[in-house]
């Protein structure tokens, strides 16, 4: 919290004289977008917060401050990708994990009403490509946030079956997403 604004502090960086970025400016400018970038890939708030913190701690120690905004952004996002990849490696060791597939889905498809609430078109399109029962189980779990028990009741099947269906639906979605890569 600043009691006084330092005099002589440029309010906007100029790309001409190699602006320096204060922690304040880097943080205020990029915290929201970096967090969203991470969150959309790890899918839960707590992990997203942990990983976002890692990105900014690395920035505090390693980021060269005399850069242009685009360069700072690129640096932060590259670090975020690395941090996310490390995160996934805790679950399964892979030489390289890259599932940036949702934004790369290409096939256009009509989006059914029930999944129109999805914020990202890519996710909605992905769901729309699934068979009905797969789309249904994922919608109930991830959009309506029903428990396995509730989803089982809704679908008129057993809890064990919902778990199996959920797994297969996610697998199919992953295949579709990978197939949608350029």
């Amino acid at each position, binding site marked *: 919290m600043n009691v*006084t604004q330092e005099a002589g502090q440029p309010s906007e960086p100029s790309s001409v004289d190699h602006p320096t970025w204060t922690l304040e400016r880097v943080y205020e400018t990029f915290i929201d977008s970096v967090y969203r970038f991470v969150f959309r890939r790890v899918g839960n708030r707590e992990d997203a917060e942990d990983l976002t913190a890692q990105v900014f701690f690395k920035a505090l120690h390693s980021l060269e401050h005399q850069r242009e905004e685009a360069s700072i952004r690129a640096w932060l996002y590259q670090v975020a990708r690395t941090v996310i990849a490390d995160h996934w490696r805790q679950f399964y060791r892979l030489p390289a994990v890259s599932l940036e597939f949702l934004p790369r889905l290409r096939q256009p498809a009509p989006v059914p009403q029930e999944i129109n609430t999805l914020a990202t078109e890519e996710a909605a399109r992905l769901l729309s490509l699934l068979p009905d029962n797969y789309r249904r189980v994922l919608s109930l779990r991830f959009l309506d946030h029903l428990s396995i028990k509730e989803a089982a009741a809704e679908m008129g099947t057993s809890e064990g079956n919902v778990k199996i269906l959920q797994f297969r639906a996610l697998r199919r979605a992953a295949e579709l997403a990978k197939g949608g890569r350029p």
Partner: protein
Amino acid sequence: MMDQFERLNDLVEGMVAQRRLKRLRLSSTDELEALQVAAALNASQPNADDPSPEFVAALHLRLLEEQAAPALRRTFGLVSRRNLFGSMAASVIASLLAGIGLDRWVLPKPAEPPRQRRWPAPLVGDDGQWVPVGMVSTMPPGTVQRFTAGAIGGHILNEDGQFRAVSASCTCMGCILTWNAEGDEFVCPCHGATFDRAGAMVDESPLYPGVQLRRLPQIRVQVEEDAVMVWTTGPIEQPPPPPLPPLV
């Protein structure tokens, strides 16, 4: 042994609840990809991806602590980084630094080699200066008046003709304290802790029961003719700002 359907569902449960995922070991890339799709779907609802204000504020503070750590280590010479971060003292000191306007990334000047940083000096060292913040004639005994001088924000008090000043930054997170004349106390607007005129904590924050906050740092004061001056540092506005009207 847990089968892949159970295992994935276990992870999905955590994800839907927005909790950290259990670090379960998956058995195939198929499972991992299914988990990643689940993550993308779970993140795809409107407004789900905004960071919480609490998180944004807390991370900001942690970064300030990290930034201040080398200076603190140099000053106190005894705390390891790990101990430092574990301790309440770190938060308090960092918030003090933050509260007096030193919460900037102290950057290398273009002429300096990269990575070299200048770190905040102690509160106000020898390189301070006296700056007038009020007039004796407008501050009768009992007055408590907010001031900002250079990098320091504080309250100046006339205690039966004796002038004293304390920092206006709460020693919890650096929020600016307000003076409550009725209760004869400084109140933190962020977490509700209160401090007496001398800067000692009176009531702990209801949000952090049992946490004893440090005293508010004292600021040196001197009177020169009608001018009440404080010892401060940082860029001084010229001419100095006119004193604010008394709060009491």
